[in-house]
């Protein structure tokens, strides 16, 4: 019972904000649509967090809405850290986190939805076929700056790194036990697509992106290739069976044990009914 009261309060504050906005716009009739919080499967779900997860959750949300016409699912991005912060402060009903939950986040309830792998990519014409972990670390810390030192042709290496705050960066740094200030990059990028375009446009570049995105672009003829790590090929298959080392779980999180609408949504997102959406988004469904 306590949970539903909690939920109700959130909705009241939400509709108060909506009321203010609507009052400003001068169309108070539409307020009535927002205040039906009594039926458990109607109302509005606010979901914020990792940009990696947002398109996936938005698609799941659309299908969920089509099953429950009175439900609205609002998905906003802003990174895993925002997902955690918003869920803690009650700004979001559900948060999206694209990494392993940290120790200081044990107060939140996390539900894995899918898996994602971070793969190292090179230009297709680069003769280098594999790099050891030590070589990757040496390249990213600027100790090796020429491809001939790792078995390629003589050419300076262009190191592509991610901007601070991105979860792909965290996953990458965590696996290679690096600190961001030790990374000597020549290019810093924002999202995965920008990373792939940068590597595709530069034959001497090395970068890292989500395996799902890279695998799809590679199949579409973009001149990049995924490197194997620790002898394991980078593919959605090895991410699924958890043999690929640089992979991460994708979680949705709540502040309190979920109930009502939130519980229904989480159960739906974890069900087999959405596996086709997960595959469409180049993520890997969990083995169940």
């Amino acid at each position, binding site marked *: 019972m306590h949970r539903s009261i909690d939920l109700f309060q959130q909705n009241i504050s939400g509709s108060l904000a909506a009321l203010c906005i609507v009052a400003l716009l001068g169309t108070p009739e539409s307020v009535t649509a927002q205040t039906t919080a009594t039926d458990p499967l109607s109302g509005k779900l606010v979901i914020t967090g990792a*940009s990696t997860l947002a398109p996936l959750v938005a698609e799941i949300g659309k299908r969920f809405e089509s099953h429950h016409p009175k439900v609205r699912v609002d998905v906003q*991005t*802003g*990174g895993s*850290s*925002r997902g955690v*912060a918003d869920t803690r402060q009650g700004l979001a009903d559900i948060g999206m986190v694209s990494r392993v939950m940290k120790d200081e986040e044990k107060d939140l309830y996390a539900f894995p939805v899918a898996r994602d792998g971070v793969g190292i990519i090179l230009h297709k014409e680069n003769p280098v076929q594999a790099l050891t972990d030590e070589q990757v670390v040496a390249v990213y810390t600027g100790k090796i700056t020429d491809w001939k030192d790792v078995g390629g042709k003589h*050419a*300076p290496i*262009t190191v592509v790194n991610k*901007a*601070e*705050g*991105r979860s792909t960066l965290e996953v990458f740094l965590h696996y290679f036990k690096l*600190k*961001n*200030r030790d990374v000597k*990059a*020549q*290019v*810093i*990028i*924002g999202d995965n697509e*920008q990373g792939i*375009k*940068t590597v595709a*446009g*530069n*034959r*001497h*570049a090395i970068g890292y992106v989500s395996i799902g995105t890279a695998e799809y672009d590679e199949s579409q003829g973009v001149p990049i290739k995924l490197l194997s790590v620790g002898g394991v090929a980078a593919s959605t298959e090895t991410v699924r069976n958890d043999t690929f080392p640089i992979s991460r779980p994708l979680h949705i999180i709540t502040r309190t044990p979920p109930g009502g609408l939130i519980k229904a949504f989480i159960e739906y997102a974890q069900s087999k009914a959405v596996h086709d959406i997960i595959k469409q988004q180049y993520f890997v469904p969990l083995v169940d």
Partner: protein
Amino acid sequence: MTSLSSNTLSRWSTDELLCWSLRGIATIAGAIVMLIVVFLIVEALPVLHHVGLLRFFTDPSWHPAEGLYNLTPMLWGTLFAMTGSVLIATPLGVLSAVFCHYYAPPVLARPYRRLIELLAGIPSVVYGFWGLVVLVPLIAEVQPPGPSLLAGILILMIMILPTIALMADASLATVPQQYIRGAAALGLPRWAIIRGVVFPAARSGLLTGVILETGRAIGETMAILMVCGNVVQTPSSVFDPIRTLTANIALEMAYALGDHRAALFVSGLVLMTIIVALAVSAEWISRGRMYG
């Protein structure tokens, strides 16, 4: 005022109404700028309070997640990219306007002007995309890594060229015909007329054009984000990647929290300061005759 109000009440109220609505609109326009500045300061205050303004210029590097907030490399990046592009675009733009007005046959001048206007209308992300897939690989052939200050300067130059070209075009059009005819009657050659008569007469318009293009060069974000490499460092050559203040905000804002977020608002404040300094110096250079 009293005589007016005693004559006809209706005329008085119309004038008064217009006067007050104009005052209101002017207040809104001014208030928006002030609100933005106040908002920037309020959002930046937490980090300014416990980190201090000085550390934004003396810290060893920009790693906000680790509590290091040096903005100077990005300040240099912004200034270098701006200066480089303005230095190239200004003569090109002014000469393009001169060509359009005094050298091109009318058949050519009209379509040429439309073409420049079209250039001004292309969204910046399109320039950025073109820069990323065409310009950057070209530069990478000459001197790796490719994304660099040079790429930024070239893209910015193309983007601000129509601004200065169209402004120069408009200000050359306002030069009185009798000046030019008079100079021609004295037997001056065409280039001497342009240099000695047209340019001084059109000076205020040309200066406004330079200020507008500089403002656009400082504020440009998307294209710069895509071609500059975004590495936080003070460039030692034009082939080094840089990050500008605007790119810094766009790149990190979506993922920033707490002090990191406030530090990005400090980037915004620094940008605002540059713009204010630019406007003040332009006013000072033209001694208030800029719009005269």
